[in-house]
């Protein structure tokens, strides 16, 4: 293969611009390792492409980096960060979430999730048990009170009967 012809064929430009097929790219990388001319030509093309892009550059507004940082911070807070550019969620992100399940219990609702600390499970249990105990006491004292009232009523009627006699 004549290297100059190969360089002149336009395949290097296609590669640098990302439109070479896989076979062409593999061949090019193979030839690049053998022929320094190809490596030089590729380096030059990449530099030229960068220079062309520099001439076409538009300076971003001053607050752009702050917005990017804000976006990255949002991604850090939101576990579903992989949805950002129209992609399906990956198992890896689920995996990273499972590590947190040791610290949190999930209260699941139809519309979403709520994360709370595990300690609240015992608090809820204690509140439930205490509620039952108070309820039992309340019923007991209510019945006791009703019974006492009935006794008093009975005694009152007996006393009145005695007085009338």
């Amino acid at each position, binding site marked *: 293969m004549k290297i100059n012809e190969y360089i002149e064929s336009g395949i290097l430009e*296609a590669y640098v611009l990302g*439109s070479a097929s896989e076979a062409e790219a593999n061949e090019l990388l193979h030839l690049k390792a053998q022929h320094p001319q190809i490596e030089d030509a590729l380096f030059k093309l990449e530099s*030229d492409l960068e220079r062309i892009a520099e001439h*076409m550059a538009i300076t971003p507004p001053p607050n752009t980096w702050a917005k990017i940082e804000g*976006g990255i911070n949002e991604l850090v807070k939101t576990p579903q960060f992989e949805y950002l550019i129209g992609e399906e969620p990956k198992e*890896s992100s689920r995996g990273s979430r499972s590590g947190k399940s040791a610290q949190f219990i999930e209260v699941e609702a139809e519309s979403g999730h709520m994360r709370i600390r595990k300690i609240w499970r015992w608090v809820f249990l204690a509140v439930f048990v205490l509620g039952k105990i108070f309820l039992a006491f309340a019923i007991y004292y209510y019945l006791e009170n009703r019974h006492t009232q009935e006794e008093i009523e009975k005694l009152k009627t007996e006393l009145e009967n005695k007085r009338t006699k």
Partner: protein
Amino acid sequence: MLETTPHSLTEHQPESIRSLYDRHAGMLLGYIFEVVKDRKLAEEYLIKVFCDLSIRFNDVNRTGISGWPQLQKFAREKLLSLPDSPRYTSLNAGVKISDSPNSYLRQLTEEQRQVFCDVYYNGRTIADISRSLNKTEDLTRKTLKEAFAIMRKGSEN
């Protein structure tokens, strides 16, 4: 598989993403603007691309996105993967090239411009472009080379 956690995001990315931003944000905004022809939208996409880059950062380190060609390909793939994927609109679709800050495209013939823009902005393969132009792949590659050479000369002046 890419292992990305919030921890890895915060721990590894800031200065490297920032240095990519410092070096190439303007170029990338110019590139995206050429595709979408809307400054506000281009800025939004620029932010999305950099945020996405931070997610992929571990992978990026492996694949070595350090220079413009890699970053441009990454951005192009991201733009094309969006649900309302923006595509470069050619002059045939009624877009005035004079509206664009890219004066180099004006120096190209219609066919050279079409081939260059289809490759650079729309990520079409040489085989695909050759079929639509009814030309051989060799001839399409030659046209691409000519277009690139003209643009390179323009940037040197």
